[in-house]
């Protein structure tokens, strides 16, 4: 079978033996990381659901004897459930992009498939874009937290 490829210009940047090896290794490790990431996502979601159920049952037990404690347990359960599931969903997408990068890159390098190579780089691009936006949001929240802490600390002193 003729490999699905578009021959490039000889003077273009090529996938030579060296870059082939480096990209293959990078793809292998990226695939491993993504699989571990998928497992962590699943564990995080399961943890959130179990914690939600546990807090819910605690809340039901204390609803009659100690209503404020029951309400607090209910709220805590909902908080853990929402944050854990949201975290798992948020963590799932970069793992998916990384997995696609790894598997498509391996296929591209094995079969000399130009389309798979381009798609794999597209997925790595999506991975870094997602991670970059998330990092910027995280850093902005970090700065806001520092500013708020400084404001509250100065109010506490004076």
């Amino acid at each position, binding site marked *: 079978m003729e490999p699905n490829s578009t021959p490039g210009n000889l003077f273009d940047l090529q*996938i030579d033996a060296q*870059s082939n090896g480096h*990209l293959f290794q990078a793809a292998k490790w990226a695939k491993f990381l993504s699989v*571990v990431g998928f497992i962590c996502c699943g564990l995080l979601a399961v943890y959130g659901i179990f914690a939600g159920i546990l807090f819910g049952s605690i809340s039901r037990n204390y609803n009659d004897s100690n209503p404020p404690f029951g309400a607090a347990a209910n709220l805590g359960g909902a908080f853990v459930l929402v944050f854990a599931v949201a975290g798992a969903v948020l963590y799932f997408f970069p793992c998916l992009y990384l997995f696609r990068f790894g598997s498509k890159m391996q296929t591209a390098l094995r079969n000399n*498939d130009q389309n798979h190579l381009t798609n794999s780089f597209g997925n790595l691009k999506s991975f870094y874009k997602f991670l970059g936006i998330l990092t910027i949001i995280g850093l902005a929240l970090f700065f806001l937290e520092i500013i708020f802490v400084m404001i509250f600390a100065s109010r506490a002193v004076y």
Partner: protein
Amino acid sequence: MENENQLDSFFKISFDADAREHLKTIVLWARICAICAFISYTIALIVAIFGKTVSPTYSEQSYQVSSNLKTWTIASALISGIIGFAINYFLYRFTAEAKQGLDVVDQVKLNDGLINLKTYFKIIGVLFLIVLIIVGLVLLFVIIGSLGRGTY
């Protein structure tokens, strides 16, 4: 067969226009990630060193506890900072060399960049493996410990 395949691939797949565009965007966002990581590790270290640990009472014991807590905070910020800096240094080197390789169509520079990308993924992978082994060992010890306590 392997060599033949490698020679074959030399002329069959390349960084075409689409792949180059993707690589340019990868370089841009990976650089943003690396720089943000450098900034956050630095801030975390500054906060750990100069931040005050507030203690509700002024007793000798609470002073000892807060001083121990501060030491642990600085140590953990330093260790995570060193590891994070090392990992993101490779990501930054990848972006710098790949950008140069793409701008001046330099195969050697691009390959150097790809070595750094490979190293970046490899280090994170090895760290993950170490963490998984430690978690596995802790779980194993907990299970053995609880079984041991259950029999007596």
